[in-house]
């Protein structure tokens, strides 16, 4: 356990993190592209159209993985924020803050693809459905974290404050979800139940979905590492290692 912790905390060194991240990034990106291309091909081209919703249901291969990521990244951000608050890792602070815009992006993709799908299927771009509303509130939670981080001048203070906010949001998230569900059943009797019809999904639709779920995870990993790396170099731009990263190893003065 102790050895593991020591190993883990060694990534707290910005220089080591930068080196390791640089090595992993192309792999993650490559895996994301590979699984994404195969998943999209199987889903959009090869797979069957939905017998009820026709071709428009194919948007789910983007919509559903993005929706999973929107929650996954929030959890990750709060976890990284927790590490930042408890152990004061600079890398964890930057990771939490690097995750926020990616999560907000996935949340926005979820909302946009959902409303594009809703137009032909429900006949409207937006309904005040419980899922849609919670997703929208989640987007605002992300905006709050990003806004707070950007508003505070000292980036370390800002990251810690935003991390605490992310944790408060994480505690609140299930309550928001529950309350929105409760509100929905109170206000409209016939809510559209998205998933009632496909409790058992055909393998030809499941596989692309699983592939896309992996693709989005890999993409998140690559994007997170790249953003954290860039933030580290910017933050430590005065340090020797960052100078070496930016301008190459310093030549001995002639």
């Amino acid at each position, binding site marked *: 356990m102790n050895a593991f912790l020591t190993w883990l905390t060694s990534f707290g060194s910005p220089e080591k993190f930068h080196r390791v991240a640089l090595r992993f990034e192309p792999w993650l990106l490559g895996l994301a592209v590979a699984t994404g291309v195969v998943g999209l091909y199987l889903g959009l081209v090869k797979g069957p159209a939905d017998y009820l919703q026709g071709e428009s249901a194919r948007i789910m291969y983007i919509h559903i993985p993005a929706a999973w990521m929107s929650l996954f990244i929030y959890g990750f951000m709060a976890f990284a924020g927790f590490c930042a608050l408890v152990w004061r890792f600079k890398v964890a602070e930057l990771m939490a803050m690097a995750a926020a815009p990616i999560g907000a992006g996935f949340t926005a993709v979820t909302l946009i693809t959902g409303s594009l799908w809703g137009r032909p299927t429900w006949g409207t771009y937006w309904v005040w459905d419980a899922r849609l509303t919670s997703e929208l509130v989640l987007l605002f939670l992300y905006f709050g974290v990003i806004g*707070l981080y950007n508003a505070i001048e000292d980036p370390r203070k800002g990251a*810690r404050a935003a991390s*605490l906010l992310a944790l*408060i949001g994480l505690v*609140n998230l299930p309550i*928001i979800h529950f*309350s929105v569900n*409760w509100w929905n059943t*109170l206000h409209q009797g016939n809510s559209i139940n998205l998933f009632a019809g496909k409790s058992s999904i055909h393998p030809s639709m499941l596989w692309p979905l699983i592939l896309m779920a992996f693709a989005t995870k890999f993409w998140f990993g690559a994007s997170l590492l790249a953003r954290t790396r860039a933030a580290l170099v910017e933050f430590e731009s005065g340090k020797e290692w960052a100078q070496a990263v930016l301008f190459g190893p310093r030549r001995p003065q002639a």
Partner: protein
Amino acid sequence: MRKGSVLSAFFGVMRRDALSLWRRRADALNPIWFAAIVITLFPLALGPEAAKLARIAGGVIWVIVLLASLLSLDALFRADLEEGSLDLMLTSAQPLAVLAAAKILLHWLATGLPLVAITPIAATALGLSPKALPVLLTSLALGTPIISVIGACAAALTAGLRRAGMLLSLIVLPLVVPVLIFGAGAVEASLTGTSTTQPMLLLAAGLVASIALGPLVCAAALRLGNH
């Protein structure tokens, strides 16, 4: 109550805040004026039709109370930070959470409670059914302290910022969505004749949880800004 005890610190902070509030009592009334004006705007925008106004009165009052409570949050820790008494609180021998709790309680007494107090007038003006009024008042009495607690945590996080107002709303509003839903939902339930027990109990549970945890989170947020 011994001098230097936790309780004396709690009441000391409350008395000090109450005194400074009294010295600027015109400012203290701002949330009330804000609520009164916004309530006037609704009939002007939607038309004076009584049935329509009565239908939406509960939700409208809840939203207005929520927004009015936000107005005074901005200044909750700002003055203390600028004149340095926040530093004294941070270095005080008394637990910071207790001092934060005192500030939150006074914020509620100065903002939440008066808003609840003027609610009967607002509800009558909008024509809310009299049988829903007790439900509205109870839900507000349970919900406004939660808004003060969550708002205080956000105010602590944004205390050092120059223009925190908009950011504060961006942070607070998503977090208080459940309070609004259960509060306005209770009023709605009483209008449609269904039981209000569930939303009321949920609000009460939220109140208990936020009283227990809120001051601790608020203290942690205040410490973060002062490393």
